[in-house]
């Protein structure tokens, strides 16, 4: 069983940060890089499926610059077999649809049985890349999966999605397919020091757009949006900061609630 897991190294912002003046973006000094939270769960799900199947391969793929290497290494340390990083300067401002186009080319080279994405990335929060990737690959897809059972030798999987009001929707999907995985579906493992060291020996291939038969024009054509500007929102009005001891604050809150309720 071969599973491809696209992952993303996301920007984690300090409590206080400035946006850049010359182009849309955040001051890089205020950014730390970390593997996207959802991707811990998609990788874990892939590893568990491979372990249950007894053989197979988990390939992690990321579109990103040098910073993305660390995230792929973390996945390899947890047990992924191989990593692929795609990068080209043309991708610097790529939107989710453009990234999906690039991922599609990379995933096609792998011909997997299953593609597991995270539901969303914590920095962009578009929730678009996974579904767009399924579209490019022509694969059936299910989004926001919180339970997954592979039928073993067959080529279907039963998946659960959580809907509003705690409703659970159960679907059977034919493979190959693409699922976006929700946090909490499993308990992600961590890597031991030995596994971290050994991960450095695992294959991690770096590919350019050319290696995937793409160029900057194709990426631009695939894009659906571009970020025009980025700014801190204006401070709103109507907020009142309550000061004083806890009992004074509580008394004031009670007053406000009474005022509003009588109004």
């Amino acid at each position, binding site marked *: 069983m071969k599973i491809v897991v696209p992952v993303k190294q996301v920007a984690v912002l300090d409590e206080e940060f400035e946006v850049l003046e010359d182009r849309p973006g955040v001051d890089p000094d205020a950014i730390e890089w970390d593997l996207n939270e959802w991707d811990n769960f998609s990788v874990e799900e892939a590893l568990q499926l491979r372990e249950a199947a007894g053989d197979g391969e988990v390939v992690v793929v990321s579109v990103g610059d040098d910073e993305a290497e660390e995230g792929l290494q973390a996945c390899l340390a947890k047990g992924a077999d191989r990593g692929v990083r795609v990068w080209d300067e043309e991708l610097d401002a790529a939107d989710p649809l453009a990234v999906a186009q690039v991922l599609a080319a990379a995933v096609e080279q792998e011909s997997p049985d299953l593609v597991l994405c995270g539901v969303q990335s914590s920095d962009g929060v578009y929730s678009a890349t996974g579904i767009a990737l399924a579209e490019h690959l022509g694969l059936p897809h299910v989004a926001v999966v919180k339970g997954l059972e592979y039928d073993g030798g067959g080529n279907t999987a039963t998946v659960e999605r959580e809907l509003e009001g705690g409703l659970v929707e159960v679907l059977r999907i034919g493979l190959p397919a693409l699922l976006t995985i929700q946090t909490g579906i499993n308990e992600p493992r961590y890597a031991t*020091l030995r596994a*971290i060291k050994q991960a450095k020996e695992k294959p991690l291939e770096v590919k350019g757009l050319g290696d995937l038969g793409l160029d900057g024009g194709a990426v631009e054509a695939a894009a659906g949006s571009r970020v025009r500007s980025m700014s801190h929102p204006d401070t709103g009005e109507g907020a009142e900061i309550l000061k004083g001891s806890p009992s004074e604050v509580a008394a004031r809150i009670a007053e406000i609630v009474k005022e509003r309720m009588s109004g």
Partner: protein
Amino acid sequence: MARDPKYDILFEPIQLGPKTLKNRFYQVPHCIGAGSEKPGFQAYHRGIKAEGGWGALCTEYCSIHPESDDTMRVSARIWDDDDVRNLSVMCDRLHQFDALAGIELWYGGPHAPCMESRHNPRGPSQIPSDFEVNTHPRYMDKDDIQLVQQMYVDAAVRAREAGFDIIYVYGAHSYLPLQFLSPYYNKRTDEYGGSFENRARFWKECLEKVREAVGDDCAIASRFAVDTLYGPASIEVGEDGVRFVEHVDDLVDIWDLTVGDISEWGQNAGPSRFFEENHEKPYTGQVKEGRHTNKPVVGVGRITNPDTMVRIIQSGQFDIIGGARPSISDPFLPKKIEEGRPEDIRECIGCNQCISRWEIGGPPMICTQNATAGEEYRRGWHPEKFHPAANREKGVLVVGAGPAGMECAMVLGKRDMEAVHLVEADAEIGGCVNWISQLGHSDGNENIFRGTARGLGEWKRIVNYRQIQLDKLKNVDVHTGSRLSTQDVLEYGAEIVIIATGAHFATNGLNPATHDVIEGADASLDWQLTPDQVVKGEKSVGNRVLVLENEGYHMGVSIAQKLAGEGHDVRIITQRGDVATYMEYTLEAPMLHRDLHRLGVEIHPYTMLEKIEPGVCHAYNVWKPDHKEQFEVDSVVLCTQRLSNDELYHELRSDKEALEREGIEALYMIGDAAAPRMIPDSIFDGHRLAREIDSPNPAMPLPFIRERRLWGDVTNQDYESMLQNTPDVEPMVVAAK
């Protein structure tokens, strides 16, 4: 990052007579165990706080004459020029950081037992000390009054010579000047007793004489308990409290205000178990609120929160934020506010372990939160600076994230080890602190004196501080919910393995009183419990509960308080003369006993259990074992002793071939896993190992500088060469005197 402008007010300078305090952070006098006889300890401990931004630092109480000798406890002394020489080192060190040095001139009256000097203290009236055992003062006639006042003057002149900027006439905690003021001590009928003016005369004259002698050069301070909490029998804030401030206001440059006396000074150094931050406000806050002074006021109350500090200043409660315990817990508290990182403040937890060492009488001060407290000179440890470890490329696995494990991993991270993994079996880090911090409550009602049993919630700061630091350290990975087997540890890939797996309570009654198990004791039964089982609520507890308290610290009584507060009928038996004897040292005992009494908890001292049967415990008197007693019970709590969780360590250690095969070069054990102990000692153990992880044999602590008198010709170098590790504290250059 720059400091938040809302804290600017804390960094305004304040004029204290002829001296300028550079900001509003002031370390009030507190004991550390250094005195004048360990000048390196004294200078470096206060110096670290000056480096950390405190604007003024004081000595502990400093005896002015051999007839005020507090041995068996450690005070400073300024009896002669050699004391001047030793105390001047502290002044030099503070002045290097633009901080002011204060000295608290002390004459104890009947509270000075003079066990070293063999002198006899004088007092206003011949009533023995309520703090010491059987210590009577000699009655002071008017010649004696002149004599003792001259002792203050001579000491003040010597203090100026040593380089002190602030000179105290110390009265608070019921020492001689306050003894004259208080009718509880002063029964005189001459012009030094009776009316307020008469009772105030001694203190006023002392201030006049000291001011006359050194007031042009030094700021004159007085430390005053505005309320000794004895009601009309002594000083009450609304009466003689504010009256005295007004009476001598012209004679001081700064007021240092407290409450309580020495017999129960836990009302001043309030443990968090009973008192919240800024708990003295109802008393000391009245002085400025009622406009009774024109002088700057410093006050205390375990104030660690910068927002509380701002509120205190802005509301006009105090002008200056005093701190003793907060400055021990975090010597860099002011600097962390100034640098815009208040989340890094290592807040005092109010456990009073620091104070316990003074109360015990000799050992150097320790701090639960700050393992470097007291180690600045003798071990060269700095609370905020850590040189990179020489073996930083070694991968480290720390098993267990309790106090020792958290501290060890954090310090290894700060020492720049490349990869540290802290692995914890529970879902959260913190170990025993997570359940112990849920104790200390009873029924939430007011204690019969003041305050309530508010619990040990602030002890959770042990975990919070380390959690924040560990999150910031990119070279430390914390993994929770993962219990490692011997095989897991072997295969982990670490070159250094540190076992910090904690301890558990004995379930069979094994105890320090008989060194044996107790017949019938078995905490696997549903009606017998260990303390952690009580807190975790794993078993229901019956109405009639017997708590066997063999530990001597807070665990047994904490359980008793909790269960009595929940409505159970509780009795405690202990082999000692009292329960929780260590809580006398932490100043928690008086409030604890009030609470136990109020809750109707029955205490049986000098009692031990012979046998436990369903429904009945068989007890005996330890001095007369055939004097037996039976207690009908529904549940029994066994707080007898703890045992290390050391199986993992011993299994690993027993297979040296496997360790070698798997590349494990070193295996250590720290904290309760090695031997159960109090939390500050576990944290110290973890810190110590991490500080010395690159020493020739990290399992054995390196020697430290011992400031004892060496026979023959000696130089400072002879002491400093005792240090075998690289100090993180910058050594000072001391000119020979």
